[in-house]
């Protein structure tokens, strides 16, 4: 095996964006424009002038990215949304071409950019294994050889002859991951698959990735879950605005990323919401928001059972009274976990013209370490018709572990909701009783 699995050299990707004219992407428009341009060219030629050509706006999604990955190395890639992580992966998996530079990949690339790509809902589980395997680049022989292993890993034995449209999300995901994980590529690229699936499944995915790495295959792991990155990777690249800004041991890079000053969603900093996607009748708007657990040691990051304070700046155009103001915390999967609606306490809120400050204080946050999405809600009453301003996804917030496990470590057990419990042993009932074990929550 070569001593390099992936090498990139000055990789760059330019995207054209901005206002394309309305008829730009129709054949009719293209023909009309062609005629127009020809006429224009003739006119310009007649007047002895050269042609000016308006260039579309463009931006570099990726710029001068160079790094090398050795076989067996597990490299995390982190960075804010839109930093260029996905573009990098798309180039490495040959979905899109770079504009500049070169990447050399030694061996087959297996990508988990989105598990279940190519699954057809009407085909049986068995058929989808073959179809998906073929799409990912496996031969029929490979798939047949691995079939039992794939099915066992996915735990869908009884449902092999059921169309996958009848599968639960969990089964679907397990089967999809199982196919991709058994591809045995020399380079495995994983993008955020672990955001879904239950804790046990996530654990098995991580375990599978571990064993893949031990077999001497390189893994690129892109995630927003810094804890997962820290647990899994040895090295980490941080990408910002299309360039690699940090490259080194995972601990240093992740901690540097956590404490970065330009973090728009870090704690104890005002997050500007003026450009956020929102719904509502306006009249009043969330302008800025700031959150903090108040813990100096954790840099203000929220932690399980710790306090958490949200300060909301609300710009109102007039004096008004509102019944419903809420901070909503959702899982990355979109499940509403926390909703601090003032309506539930029946306390009306008075907003005066200008900027108002409202603080919502959670005494103990019952969330385990992970990344959550925070939304904001403001309405005249709890009826949706009186909605004034709703920012469904204001920012992502990371809950960190409080240090008893070591900074940034996520326990291998999962579950979004933090709960305190104890274990009582030695309460075995006499034989014949229904209670067998002695494990209880309290």
């Amino acid at each position, binding site marked *: 095996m*070569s001593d390099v699995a992936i090498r990139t050299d000055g990789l760059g990707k330019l*995207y054209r964006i901005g206002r394309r004219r309305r008829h730009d*992407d*129709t*054949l*009719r*428009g*293209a023909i009309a424009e062609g005629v127009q341009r020809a006429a224009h060219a003739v006119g310009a030629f007649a007047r002895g002038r050269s042609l000016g050509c308006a260039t579309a706006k463009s931006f570099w999604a990726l710029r001068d990215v160079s790094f090398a990955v050795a076989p067996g190395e597990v490299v995390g890639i982190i960075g804010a949304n839109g930093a260029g992580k996905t573009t990098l992966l*798309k*180039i*490495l*998996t*040959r*979905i*899109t*071409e*770079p*504009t*500049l*530079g*070169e*990447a*050399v*990949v*030694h*061996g*087959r*690339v297996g*990508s988990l*950019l*989105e598990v279940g*790509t*190519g699954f*057809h809902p*009407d*085909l049986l589980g068995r*058929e989808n294994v*073959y*179809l998906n395997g*073929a*799409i*990912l*680049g496996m*031969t*029929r022989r490979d798939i047949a050889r691995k079939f039992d292993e794939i099915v066992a890993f996915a735990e869908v034995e009884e449902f092999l002859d059921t169309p996958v449209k009848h599968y639960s999300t969990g089964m679907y995901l397990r089967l999809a991951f199982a196919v991709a994980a058994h591809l045995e590529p*020399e380079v495995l690229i994983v993008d955020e698959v672990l955001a879904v699936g239950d804790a046990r499944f996530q654990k098995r995915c991580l375990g599978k990735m571990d064993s893949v790495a031990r077999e001497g295959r390189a893994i690129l792991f892109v995630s927003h879950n810094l804890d997962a990155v820290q647990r899994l990777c040895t090295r980490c690249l941080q990408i910002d605005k299309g360039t690699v800004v940090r490259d080194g041991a995972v601990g240093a890079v992740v901690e540097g990323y956590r404490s970065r000053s330009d973090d728009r969603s870090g704690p104890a900093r005002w997050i500007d919401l003026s450009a956020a996607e929102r719904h509502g009748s306006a009249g009043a708007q969330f302008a800025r928001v700031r959150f903090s657990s108040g813990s100096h040691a954790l840099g203000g990051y929220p932690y399980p059972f710790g306090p958490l304070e949200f300060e909301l700046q609300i710009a109102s155009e007039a004096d008004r009274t509102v019944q419903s103001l809420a901070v909503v915390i959702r899982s990355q999967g979109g499940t509403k976990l926390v909703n601090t609606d003032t309506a539930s306490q029946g306390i009306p809120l008075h907003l005066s013209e200008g900027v108002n400050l409202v603080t919502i204080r959670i005494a103990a946050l019952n969330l385990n370490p992970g990344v959550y999405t925070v939304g904001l809600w403001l309405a005249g009453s709890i009826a949706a018709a009186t909605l004034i301003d709703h920012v469904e996804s204001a920012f992502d917030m990371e809950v960190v572990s409080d240090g008893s496990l070591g900074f940034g470590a996520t326990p291998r057990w999962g579950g979004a909701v933090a709960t305190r419990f104890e274990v009582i042993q030695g309460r075995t009932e006499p034989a014949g009783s229904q209670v067998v074990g002695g494990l209880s929550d309290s």
Partner: protein
Amino acid sequence: MGYPVVHIRPTRGFASLGIRELWQSRELLYFLVWRDVKVRYAQTALGISWAVIQPFLTMVVFSLFFGRLARMPSDGVPYPIFSFAALVPWTFFANGVVQSANSLVLNQNLIKKVYFPRLAIPTTAVVSGVVDLVVAFAMLFGMMLFYGIAPSANIAWLPPLLVLALVSSLGTGLWLSALNVLYRDVRVVTPFLVQLWLLATPIGYPSSLLREPWRTLNGINPMAGVVEGVRWAMLGTPTAPGPAILVSATTALALLIGGALYFRRMERTFADRV
């Protein structure tokens, strides 16, 4: 065990056809075709019969209007079988063109998430029509039995003629599918184009109706050669493929190679634009 070393770098101008890569992913092609066929036949209430109903109903309509009302000559065979023998390869061709033209847009999920030779997608769309073609041919044999027409030894020429239909369909489909990614109104233009093409092909009428410059000129239309050839091979009409079939074959090949080159050239932007 050797493993491939892939160099990823920007490409410019015309790319190679990538035939070898396509050949290497023939199993993928097989699975995609199999998916298309299975889903199509599992989903439709009428199942396999659609493949037959489409050319059959067209034949009925043609027989009524062209055969009965316009008393169109039909090269010495009953008009219904005259038109049906032409509609069978035509339907294969036309469905292939329409399906492949939309194939990239329909499979955009795949294109945006996984790499594989993109040529596999429009190719699948055309090739999966072969199953329908076989069913329709069974129907044609049934009609020949009904009219008491026995095929002659000419039937040996059927396979190359059908390959010509496939090449024409794929060639046209490659052009349209790539254009469809760039220009969204291609989807609207395609059925119209196919309709005009139907009228320009001697399906409802014999090419013996055409006067001379037009008759030879019609050979440029590859489907004219296919349709007349299939009639000759199956029904023994006096339309044996002459030099005109070479013109048809050349056009079809030019369509295919040109289409593949254009497709490969545009391919690198598919994931960003689709």
